[in-house]
């Protein structure tokens, strides 16, 4: 398996650390309901098909990546930086979860 790091280029899988679904980027507000936190920390889809998950280029540039891939065909259709290095401004921003538009949220009962 190979991943094309947006910074380093195509690299062998051994350089990367796998961390699971991209759901981890959707961090709830501090005062969110316990069910919301439970969903965030523990509940994951297990799709046969397209999935987006987090990888860390540990033996490389140190970038966290969102990889879009198909769990059936193993085809990788995208590798994006969680945070492009030049993003932001020097004055400092706020702690914020990266919200991904269009992502389908789990329906109640999906976990069953």
């Amino acid at each position, binding site marked *: 398996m190979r991943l094309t790091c947006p910074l*380093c280029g195509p690299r062998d899988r051994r350089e990367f650390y796998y961390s699971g679904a991209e759901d981890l980027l959707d961090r709830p507000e501090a005062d969110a309901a316990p069910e919301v936190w439970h969903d965030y920390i523990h509940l994951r889809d297990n799709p046969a098909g397209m999935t987006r998950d987090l990888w860390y280029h540990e*033996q*490389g540039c140190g970038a966290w990546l969102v990889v879009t891939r198909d769990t059936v065909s193993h085809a990788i259709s995208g590798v994006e930086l969680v945070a492009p290095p030049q993003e932001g401004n020097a004055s400092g921003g706020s702690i914020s979860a990266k919200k991904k538009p269009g992502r389908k949220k789990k329906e109640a009962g999906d976990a069953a």
Partner: protein
Amino acid sequence: MPEPIATPALDHPPFARGGATLALADPGPMTSVAPFPGQETAVNAALQGAGLGFPAPNRVIEGQGARVVWTGRAQAFVIGVAAPDLTGLAATTDQTDGWVALTLAGPSAADILMRLVPLDLRPGAFPPGHAARSGLNHLPLILWRDATGFTLMTFRSMARTAWHEVETVMDATEARAGLAARA
């Protein structure tokens, strides 16, 4: 008041075998430069003022007796010269003592390294001026190539393992060459 005694990470004479020479190098002072968000252009300008520049990913910028090597996300090392004052523009950290540097040069150098580094290091794919952050087998690696050959940097504490890894491959390369010569 103690006398400061400097000890190198590794003490080893150069080792020539298998069509390459492995040697310890002292690339000089080393400072990591990590531009703060939005300051990339200013940092690049400041480094250009010192005859260098902030390199693109996987590249080295060479100056007089010094170089800036891209070392990762929003990070490069100024090597061989003190970094200019970048207060407010970038985080700068002295890295001089954190790394051991080895050079590997010779006709088999790329072949030897490709036993240990999972990258295409042949001249067409990794010519002089290229750099990479990768692994030397299990060791962290900062690698670049200039006109004289490869420079490998890994953590100072792992110097012995790094030398051993490369030396073992050089031994095997020499033995392979001997086999080919007899065939």
